[in-house]
């Protein structure tokens, strides 16, 4: 029963309410670092890593510190600081303990601190009034789902952009406009997933 619920949360976060294409969170890296599949995959990996950890930590702090003391209105300030520190800590730990992973994801980590997807997902996790299960479990699954959604769309986008480079495009649409049109078409395609749930 709980597994079914978790699966629905996962699919809903990854495909139906795609974090970029239907909610516009984390749009800057989506447009900025999607020039090649390799860098897009690196960024995607780093985002999955950070969002998952941030979801757990922020929900735990919310459950144990803020809610019992009636300080829930402080969640924006607390979360942004926690995320900023967390990214630094993750970077340091990775550098020391998992050097190969650091080599692969390291340069993308500092870029994530102010990625609105991380703060957005952390806030969304605690704003959901009745998740129907343990809130921390819900946060983990929602975080993983949303960041996988980010990964899927940034890698797809990078693949399309690699092809677009060789196409003959009207002069005024060269560069950013054609990328935005592509993103728009991808968003239309992702609207199709809304029938899934």
């Amino acid at each position, binding site marked *: 029963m709980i597994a079914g619920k978790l699966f629905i949360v996962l699919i809903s976060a990854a495909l139906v309410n795609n974090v970029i294409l239907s909610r516009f969170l984390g749009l800057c890296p989506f447009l900025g670092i999607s020039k090649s599949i390799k860098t897009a995959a690196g960024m995607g990996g780093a985002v999955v890593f950070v969002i998952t950890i941030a979801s757990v930590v922020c929900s735990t702090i919310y459950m144990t510190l803020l809610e019992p003391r009636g300080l829930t209105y402080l969640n*924006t300030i607390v979360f942004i600081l926690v995320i900023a520190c967390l990214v630094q800590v993750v970077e340091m730990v990775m550098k020391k303990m998992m050097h190969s992973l650091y080599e692969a994801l390291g340069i993308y980590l500092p870029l994530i601190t*102010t990625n609105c997807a991380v703060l957005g997902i952390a806030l969304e996790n605690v704003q959901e009034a009745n998740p129907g299960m343990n809130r921390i479990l819900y946060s983990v699954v929602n975080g993983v789902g949303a960041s996988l959604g980010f990964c899927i769309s940034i890698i797809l986008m990078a693949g399309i952009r690699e092809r677009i480079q060789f196409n003959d495009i009207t002069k005024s649409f060269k560069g*950013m406009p054609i990328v935005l049109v592509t993103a728009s078409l991808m968003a239309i395609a992702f609207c199709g997933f809304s029938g899934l749930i």
Partner: protein
Amino acid sequence: MNKYFKTFFNGIITENPTFVLMLGMCPTLAVTTSAINGIGMGLSTTAVLMLANLLIGILHGIIPDKVRIPSYIVIIATFVTVVDLVLQAFVPSLYSALGIYIPLIVVNCIIFGRAESFASKNGPLLSLVDGLGMGLGFTGAITIIGLVREFFGAGTAFGIDVLGRIPGFTPISTFIMAPGALFVVAILTALQNKLKAPSATNTPEGEARMACGGNCANCAGAAFVHNKELIDKRNAQIEAEKAAAKKAAAEKAAAAKMAAAEKAAAGAVKAAANAGGEVKK
């Protein structure tokens, strides 16, 4: 006085955060489903921008350089919480329409960009004026985008029925859904390119104008000082590599030239020797 007017209009027109600098794209795309939402989001951002600029302007010189980024984050987050609570209390309909995007003003790069590049270097009053100008520029821009989307997507303008009065009219509802936002901004930047209007998308220096780099659409994740150093380092590395490659190519060319010259000289010597031989004969 002139200085204040200049700063004010700089934000509204010359360096309009949305149209020219392309800053803060997330709220620009997400909340502009109607013109009213655009105004609400714009004014909330303006309030935060003014207050944060004012306080950072007052505190500049007091905050040590090393801890300025966390301090700015706390200051901005505090004002965002204030605006969030005020909206929740007095304009609940707008509060529920904007939802999660109000707390996300914290990570809007316009605010951090202005704090870092303007308020930390200028006095409180000038910073306040800059915040007002930038905020109103942002408000105007996202209201216009919201109006376009609302007009085509729902046939209304500021909630008043316009196109719906035409019999048999069906609104293009894609415009108020997510794809419409991307499409409208795409057409807008294409128009700017066509008319050669200044925008971060068609001026190479657009990216270097602000401390955070400006140009959100091309930004590698809101680039703060931390990763600005990284990016600068990388650019320097690329430049150095290019210079090295150029040098190597030049050396190679010089060597080839020299070899050719030597060959020619050798040829000449040989020819001379032959000539000498012929003479001897």
